[in-house]
């Protein structure tokens, strides 16, 4: 295919435009394509801010906004952080949270976000000293409960009872360290 503009070089770039709801495709060579306004506009843009990134990923594109607006009316009111009054929409706008409780309030949205901008949704690094004790105990309890289930399934009730006592002991310790037992 030959470039629509210079009608000399081979067309290597396809530009898709949406004009009055209809897709129109143009084919240009790389020299002509690089001279056209839409490309220059893109290069000249300021580095994308974190707010823009978040809105792009989790907000809706402008052509969808009307539809989303309609949908939202039917849905229940968006969650609001009880400590600072931030809504998820506000977070998307600011790119920042209002307080530590926002993380609890919006926790269901966050793994998806962290999967995109971080190495994963789960913290695996250092924890505050006291917390680290709680964490270790919780892990131990989880492990004992798993073993207990296996023991019950295999009808080793004596062993299961022993494990239950061990777990109770650890739960007491956990309460002492200030962690919740759930």
């Amino acid at each position, binding site marked *: 295919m030959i470039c629509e503009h210079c009608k000399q070089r081979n067309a290597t770039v396809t530009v898709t435009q949406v004009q009055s709801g209809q897709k129109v495709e143009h084919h240009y060579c790389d020299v002509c394509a690089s001279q056209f306004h839409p490309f220059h506009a893109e290069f000249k843009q300021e580095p994308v801010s974190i707010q823009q990134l*978040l809105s792009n990923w989790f907000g809706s594109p402008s052509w969808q906004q009307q539809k989303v607006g309609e949908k939202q009316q039917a849905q229940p009111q968006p969650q609001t952080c009880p400590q600072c009054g931030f809504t998820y929409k506000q977070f998307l706008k600011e790119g*920042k*949270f209002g*307080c530590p409780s926002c993380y609890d309030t919006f926790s269901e949205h966050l793994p998806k976000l962290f999967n995109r901008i971080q190495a994963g949704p789960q913290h*695996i690094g250092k924890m505050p000293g006291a917390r680290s004790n709680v964490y270790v105990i919780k892990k131990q309890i989880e492990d004992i409960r798993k073993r207990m289930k296996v023991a019950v399934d295999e009808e080793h009730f004596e062993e299961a009872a022993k494990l239950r006592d061990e777990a109770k002991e650890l739960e007491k310790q956990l309460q002492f360290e200030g962690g919740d037992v759930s």
Partner: protein
Amino acid sequence: MMIESFLERATPIWMSVEDDYSDIVISTRIRLARNLDGYRFPLAFTENEALQVEQAVTHAIKDSTKLQENYSYFAIKDLTSLQRQILVEKHLISPQLAKKELVGSILLSDDESTSIMVNEEDHLRIQCMAASFQLQKAYEQANKIDRILEKALPFAFRDTFGYLTSCPTNIGTGLRASVMMHLPALTLTGQMNQIINAMTRLGMTVRGIYGEGSENLGNVYQVSNQITLGKTEDDILADIQSVAEKIIQKERHARGKLMEKAELALEDRVYRALGTLTHARILTSEEAATCLSNVRLGVDLQLIKGIKATTLNECVVSMQPGFLQHYAGDVLPPAERDRARAEMLREALFQENMSKPIIGEKGEGSFDV
């Protein structure tokens, strides 16, 4: 200590260490972001909350017997704009903290290697610096302070998300590790864009030392991690370590190639830069940064002898607008700053470069007719 003590020194004591990496790596910085549970982040809190956070932090530091360093406290609102600017130029506070009108303060260790920013974007930003390429050393210092403070302060932490921060780009470890590198040969040979692209794919960022938009000023770049969640602190440090080592290797290779293929051109370039710095009467910060970079390259490649890297480090800091005006003791319009900058650099480099100046300040008068 009084604020003046921190403003006088262009380069702090910790900078004057030289090791195998000093030809390329200028300094290493570790930053930990922490917040107190139960208080809104600085973006949303009231002045009263800000005050409570500040008191909690300053008390925790004052009360700790384990913090061996002595810390001086300054409220940002009590500092003049020039004093704030100098602290920014020395990288002791962030430009964002310097702009705070009501809240925000800083705790500075006497040797300036540690600065604790209070109520910047997060309640606490623990920043530790080390000369050259010493990630572990800087991290150990930051970790020690963090461990001490966590005993007195209720840090906002969740098992899933780690340390909670105002911006989701700092969540998890809250750790940002940065290595400041002088990369003139990679810039000269046009390899930096490729490296910056590769860094982004590896979850790292490369920026100029003076923040956004200063990417090429003085060929100094800051390489830092972008990812803070889903990796351990050790992983983050190991990643930065290996990436920085690769860049160092590449820069050394490029320097070697330049020396091999174009030694004369390179020598000409570095001596012209030295000539400009030791003789110019007007110097913009851009020109001064470029010339200092070239002279530094000349010193590192031993084309220029007799100038210490530490002198050049000092020049890089003190040629900035805040420092120049502090030394002049007055507010200087840009044109005057360019004159003062040229004078300061002449004084700093002339004596060191030439034991017997050919044309000295005093000698100039004798050419009058």
